[in-house]
C-alpha cells in the first residue's frame, strides 16, 4: 500500500523538542561547556580541549571510585533481587494481610533519602545507636567510622532495607497477574514447588524483574545521599562511590572542569551498562520466544 509522505508532520514534534531542550539538553550543555574549558578564576574561561577527559579517564581516583561503585551495585543487586522475589512469594495473596504487607513494604520507599541516612547513622552508632550499642554489648567489634568493612556492611544493609521493597512490590505485581489456572494445572501435573517457581512464576515475573533490576542498578550506581550522610565516604575513601567523589570534586574542591568531564563519563557509563543490560535481556527474551 502506498502511503503519502508528508515531512511537515515533523513540526508536530516541535513542542516536545523545545520542552526537552529546556529541561534536559541545555542544562546538560552547560556541563559539556565546563568540561572543555579551564579557568583561573575571575570568571575567565579558556579552551582546554579534551584534556579533562583524558585526565579523568587515566585518573586512579576515578578508577577506584568506579571499582567501588561496581562492587557496591553488584552486591546490592545480588541481595535485593533474590530477597525481593523471596518476600513476594511469601506475601499473602489477598485480604487484609496482603494490604497490610503492601503498606508496610512501601514505608521505607517513602522515607526521604537523607532521613534514611540519618536513621542509619544514628542506629549504627556505638555510643547511642540501638544497633551499634547492641552489637558492642554482644562483644562484637563494630564501628562503621573506623572499620572499612563495617562501613561497607552498614551501607549495604541500609540500601537493602531501603530498596528491597521496590523489588518485592514489583515481583508481587508480577505474581498477582498469574491466573489461578496455572497453579491448578501445575498441581494436576504434579509439579514440584521448584518447578512451579521455575516454569510458571519466574517466566511471568521476568518482565517486571527486568525493570526492577534496571531501576535498582541505575539508582544504586548513582547513590549519593545515604553513604554521604552515614559515612561521608569514609573511613578514608573506602565508601567513596562515584557520586560522592564527584560531589567532593565539584562542590568541595570547585574543580568544575574535571568534575564536568567526570560527570559526563559517569553518565556514559550508566547509559552504556543499562543499554547493554537491556539489549541482552530483550535478546534473551526473543531467543526464548522461539523463532
Amino acid at each position, binding site marked *: 500500500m502506498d502511503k503519502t509522505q508528508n515531512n511537515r508532520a515533523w513540526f508536530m514534534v516541535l513542542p516536545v523538542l523545545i520542552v526537552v531542550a529546556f529541561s534536559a539538553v541545555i542544562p546538560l550543555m552547560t556541563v559539556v561547556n565546563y568540561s572543555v574549558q579551564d579557568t583561573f578564576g575571575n570568571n575567565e574561561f579558556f579552551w582546554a580541549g579534551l584534556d579533562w577527559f583524558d585526565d579523568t579517564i587515566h585518573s586512579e581516583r576515578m578508577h577506584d571510585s568506579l571499582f567501588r561503585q561496581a562492587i557496591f551495585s553488584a552486591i546490592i543487586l545480588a541481595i535485593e533481587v533474590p530477597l525481593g522475589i523471596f518476600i513476594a512469594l511469601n506475601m499473602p495473596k489477598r485480604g487484609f494481610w496482603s494490604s497490610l504487607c503492601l503498606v508496610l513494604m512501601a514505608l521505607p520507599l517513602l522515607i526521604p533519602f537523607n532521613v534514611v541516612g540519618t536513621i542509619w547513622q544514628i542506629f549504627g552508632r556505638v555510643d547511642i545507636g540501638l544497633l551499634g550499642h547492641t552489637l558492642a554489648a554482644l562483644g562484637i567489634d563494630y564501628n562503621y567510622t573506623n572499620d572499612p568493612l563495617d562501613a561497607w556492611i552498614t551501607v549495604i544493609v541500609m540500601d537493602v532495607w531501603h530498596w528491597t521493597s521496590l523489588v518485592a512490590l514489583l515481583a508481587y505485581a508480577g505474581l498477582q497477574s498469574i491466573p489461578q489456572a496455572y497453579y*491448578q494445572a501445575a498441581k494436576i501435573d*504434579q*509439579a514440584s514447588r521448584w518447578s512451579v517457581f521455575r516454569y510458571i512464576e519466574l517466566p511471568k515475573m521476568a518482565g517486571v524483574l527486568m525493570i526492577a533490576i534496571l531501576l535498582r542498578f541505575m539508582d544504586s550506581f548513582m547513590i549519593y545521599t545515604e553513604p554521604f550522610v552515614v559515612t561521608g565516604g569514609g573511613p578514608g575513601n573506602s565508601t567513596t562511590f562515584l557520586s560522592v567523589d564527584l560531589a567532593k570534586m565539584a562542590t568541595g574542591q570547585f574543580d568544575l572542569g574535571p568534575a564536568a568531564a567526570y560527570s559526563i563519563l559517569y553518565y556514559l557509563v550508566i547509559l552504556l551498562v543499562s543499554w547493554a543490560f537491556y539489549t541482552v535481556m530483550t535478546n534473551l527474551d526473543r531467543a526464548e520466544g*522461539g523463532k
Partner: protein
Amino acid sequence: MAQITLSKLAHSYLPQPKGPGDYALKEMDHVWQDGGAYALLGASGCGKTTLLNIISGLVRPSHGRVLFGDRDVTDAPTAERNIAQVFQFPVVYDTMTVRDNLAFPLRNRGMEAGVISQRVQSIAQMIGMTDVLDRKARGLTADAKQKISLGRGMVRQDVNAILFDEPLTVIDPQMKWELRTQLKSLHREFGHTMIYVTHDQTEALTFADKVVVMHEGRVVQMGTPEELFETPAHTFVGYFIGSPGMNLLDAQIDGSHAVLPDGTVPLGAAYPVLQGRTQIGIRPEFVTLGAEGLPYAVTRVEDVGRHRIVRGSIAGKPVNAILDEGATIPADPKASFQPNKINVYADDWRIAPQGGAV
C-alpha cells in the same frame, strides 16, 4: 480408572450457608460410570465448574463425599487423585518447548525417558504438532497452545478421569469440530472416563454418551441426548436443549387432556391429579400448523436452510414451530401437537404418565 461416586455432595463458598441460595451446588447423589463420556451442560454460573473442581480436588466440598471406585478421595489432594484437567484458557509452560510441555506430567511422575518420548510422539501426532515439537510454546497461537493443554491432559495413560472445562472456547469452529472428533475417538480407543463441561448444547450432545444438565446448582437431568430431547425431566432442560427450545404452555391437566384457554389438547397418556403449576411442553419439531387445532398467530418466519422456524403465539403465549422447507403456512393457521410427544410438568418437574398410551 475408576467409577466416580458423588455421595450427598453439596458445596457452598460461604463458611456459614444459610438458605439454599447460598449453595453453589445443591445436594446431589450420582454415580459416574467408569469409562463413560459425560458432558456437563448448563448456563454460565450454574455450578458446572465448581462440580468439576470438586472432582479434580481443586475445591474441597463443604458437604458430602467423593469416591473414586471404593476409595474416599474427598480430602485427597489433586496430585493423589491421578486425574487430568484441561482448562478453558490455554495453560502452557511458556519457556518450555512443546515437547517438554507434553512430557512434563510424565517427568514429574518419574517415568522412563523411553516411555516418555514414545508417549509424547504419539500425542503430538494426535494433536497434529509433530513439526513444532522443538519450538518454545510461547510463540504459538492461542489454539495451538490449547492443543498443547489438551495433549498434556491426555498424555498420561493411567488417569482416573480426564476433565475438560470448556476447552474449545478459544478454538476456531473448524478446528473445534476436528478436535472434538479426536477426543471422541480417543475415548473409544482408551476408554478413559471423560467429563466435559460446556454451555454449548451441540458440543455436549455430539461428545457425550450421557449429558448431565445443570441448573442453579442442581443436576436436573442425566441422560442420553435422545432422552434429553424426548423426555426432558425439567422445564429448564426442555428450554435449554434444542433450537429453538421446547414450547411451554400453562394448562390444566384433566386425565388424558390438557385444558388451555383456547381449547383442549389430547395427551398421549393419562395423568394423575397434579398439584402446583402445571404446564405442557412440546418441542417445535412436533407442532403442526394446519386447519385444525388451536388458533395460532404467526409473528415471524425464519428460514434456516433445511427447515423454517415459525415464531408465533397461542393465546398470547409464544409457541414456535419447525416446518419442512416445502410446507406452507395456511392463511388462518391452527396449531396441533403430536399427543405422544407432549410432556407434562408440575412445578417444573416432568410427571410420568399413568400406565401406557391411551
